[in-house]
């Protein structure tokens, strides 16, 4: 260990958002010249932590020291001045500007303080790109014309255009081909050889073994282990650290499986494909059955769900409800056939935040309450009230503004929408995202009860215990392909995590 203080220490960092404690005491120590890996499940707090580090969020509590001195990262500019650069997972480049303009955005080389010296910026950009081994990218090209991998390189060039001592990379390999990943690793090795520290976030354990020096594991907003040796810590131990829980979820009991197996499938998916998102998927869903799709972000789970629903148009394959095929790429056809979706981003994709619970529940069923376009408001209110009560949504007053509800109750309103419509197939994308632990068990019970009443449910969740606890059958996805289909009782959390992270065909 070097005699001087570590490059960065973070201790006792906490950060709360309304209703969620995103960080609840995180410690992190990074040495100059090391690749420090951050591991954790979705929602463990990785993104919040790197935003704190980038100056984008202010922590509620905790201390940060930089080269031994306590610092406050009050803004992204403050972080950049210290030499901290962040490459976000969702690239933050401006497509309408050239490569060089993006790289030097905000700190353009200028004459007389304001005249941009374009040629100087392009020359400097060319040098940076060469250092990154990508001299084929022309500094004058528009970023929008580049491939995802090339854009990644531009992001990295932007990070290096500052006097940088620490680079944070959030899942940099997610959009890359294997050989591009090799190049990325070479760049990372070059950087660390120059004394730059890298915080590397990835779901792929094998990558972490290849380039990581040390690992910090986050779970539920806390660092549960810091400074583990990346190469020698066994996978089992890492997975156990990531998943070990203090809270056990309570799942409703399954009915006897034979009951569902005897019935004709209500939903059939045959060879459904979207290039670049998921390989041909086949699945059958019977009334009363809950089928789970387990996989990481980017494994294609949400995309599959949205394609079944017609919100995305498939390249090949078809979706059948009760034996008749749906018009591909048409949400209205899917809804008319009896499919309902509770999407992943509840606020952005499902709710009308300015409206009441009643309006939100009835929005897919409006014509039922209307005669010649005229809404029978009393009938509408009575029906939504009934639906809301059946799901024990609180408060059960349908006139309540939806935005005042907790996440769990908002989700129930979305379920009530489809319940009211009397749908046969319910697609649930991350149904408990943003729902607090107390309310989850209740939501699970509601979902199981709906299935018992004959609904077929297709469930997507990044929380493996949720899929295993709630579903009857599970399809495990890795990078767009189904790697395993099994009865939920034959799988356990470790096995599924091994499958989605390592992708080993055996388990």
């Amino acid at each position, binding site marked *: 260990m070097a005699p001087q203080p570590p490059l960065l220490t973070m201790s006792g960092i906490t950060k709360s958002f309304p209703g969620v404690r995103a960080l609840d005491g995180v410690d992190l120590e990074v040495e100059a010249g090391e690749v420090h890996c951050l591991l954790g499940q979705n929602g*463990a707090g990785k993104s919040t932590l790197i935003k704190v580090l980038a100056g984008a969020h202010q922590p509620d509590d905790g201390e940060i020291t930089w080269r031994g001195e306590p610092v406050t990262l009050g803004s992204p500019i403050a972080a950049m001045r210290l030499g901290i650069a962040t490459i976000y997972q969702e690239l933050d480049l401006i497509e309408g500007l050239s490569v060089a303009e993006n790289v030097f955005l905000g700190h353009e080389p200028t004459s007389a303080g304001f005249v941009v010296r374009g040629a100087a910026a392009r020359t400097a950009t060319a040098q940076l790109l060469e250092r990154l081994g990508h001299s084929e990218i022309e500094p004058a090209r528009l970023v929008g014309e580049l491939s995802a991998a090339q854009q990644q390189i531009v992001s990295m060039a932007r990070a290096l255009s500052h006097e940088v001592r620490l680079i944070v990379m959030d899942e940099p390999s997610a959009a890359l081909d294997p050989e591009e990943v090799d190049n990325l690793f070479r760049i990372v090795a070059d950087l660390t050889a120059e004394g730059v520290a890298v915080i590397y976030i990835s779901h792929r354990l094998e990558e972490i073994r290849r380039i990581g020096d040390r690992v910090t594991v986050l779970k539920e907003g806390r660092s549960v282990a810091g400074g583990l040796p990346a190469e020698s810590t066994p996978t089992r131990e890492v997975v156990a650290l990531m998943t070990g829980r203090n809270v056990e979820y309570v799942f409703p009991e399954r009915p006897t499986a034979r009951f569902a197996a005897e019935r004709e499938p209500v939903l059939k998916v045959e060879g459904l494909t979207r290039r670049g998102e998921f390989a041909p998927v086949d699945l059958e869903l019977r009334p009363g059955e809950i089928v789970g799709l387990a996989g990481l972000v980017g494994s294609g789970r949400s995309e599959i769900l949205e394609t079944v629903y017609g919100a995305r148009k498939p390249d090949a394959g078809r979706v059948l409800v009760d034996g008749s095929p749906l018009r591909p790429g048409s*949400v209205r056809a899917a809804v008319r056939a009896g499919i309902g979706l509770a999407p992943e981003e509840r606020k952005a994709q499902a709710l*009308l935040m300015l409206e009441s619970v009643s309006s939100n529940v009835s929005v897919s069923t409006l014509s039922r309450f209307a005669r010649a376009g005229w809404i029978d408001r009393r009938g509408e209110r009575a029906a939504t009230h009934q639906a809301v009560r059946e799901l024990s949504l609180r408060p059960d007053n349908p006139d309540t503004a939806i935005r005042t509800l907790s996440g769990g109750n908002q989700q129930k309103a979305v379920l009530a929408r489809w319940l009211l419509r009397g749908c046969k197939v319910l697609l649930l994308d991350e149904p408990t995202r943003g729902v607090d632990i107390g309310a989850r068990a209740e939501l699970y019970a509601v979902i199981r009860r709906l299935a018992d009443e004959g609904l077929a449910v297709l469930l997507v969740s990044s929380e493996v215990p949720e899929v295993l606890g709630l579903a009857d059958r599970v399809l495990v996805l890795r990078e767009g392909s189904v790697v395993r289909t099994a009865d939920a009782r034959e799988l356990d959390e470790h096995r599924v995590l091994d499958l989605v992270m390592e992708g080993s065909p055996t388990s």
Partner: protein
Amino acid sequence: MTQPATAAPKDAPTSAAESAEEKGSSRLTALRWDVRTLSLLGVLAVLVAVGGITAPDEFLATSNLQLVLTQASVIGVVTVGMTFVITSGGIDLSVGAMVALASVWATTVATQDFGFAGILFTAVIVGVGCGLVNGLLIAYGRMVPFIATLAMLASARGLALQITDGSTQVVTVQSVLDLGGRDSYVLGIPPLVLIFAAVTVIGWLLLNRTTFGRRTVAVGGNAEAARLAGIDVRRQRLYLYLLSGLCCGIAAFMLIVLAGSGQNTNGNLYELDAIAAAIIGGTLLSGGRGTIVGSVLGVLIFTTITNIFALNNLETAVQQIAKGAIIVAAVLVQRRSPHGDA
């Protein structure tokens, strides 16, 4: 989304407390709504008082009040249509140009041969036709409403100029002229004001009591959620621009009655007045919330200001500045309310 175990009790308040809190805040919502309308009425009352004090004899005269209401009627009908478009998250910059085109097309010599019905029919059809083009370009051509309606603004004005060649087309159909005359007032109310009142009532019902209105709000509040809920968002958008065109056609007919002529300069800057009235009335420019009552009050406030300034012989320039200040003040007030930030 996992959460720390220790935080669970804090994050899951007892259901009783939770629901009490929620009920309280929903009641607050209803209250705020009324406050908004009341404050607009308050502004209008203050303006009436100012008018009564600064020009005591002229302002409160029956003929002046009739004039104010008549002037408000034409732009008011346009604003009702605009309110729907803005509520859906769109914008219609072409309203003034559509009024101009409809008014000149309906007053050509050939059209006037068909009399009262010919003029009314042509005005409405031209408005609806322009709205149809706007709607198709926006809903199915996937053009940004701002651009599509800007293009319509330019083309419709151009076409209006071509039809008239810059001249005023005087109406010779007596029944149309009579509608603007004092003899056709009903209990002292000009017929144009009655048309405005009817459009307002129908607009209110359409927005607040029908599936059409509900879908408009849904599309404006969250187009993606509306699509995923199974609403035909594109068809809804088409209908909305048709509706705006229809309102412009009606307004064009009203203007013909009022002026006794059709001119290619009619409806100049109506788009700005209509947008401004809708916004100060409380309709969200980003969509998702619209209020017909607010829009009508916005129109009345603007028209009253204009009238007071005219009665006091103040320059148009001062009047424009006052209008601008009112728009800014209204939007700042909206920003402070909890819904304004959505």
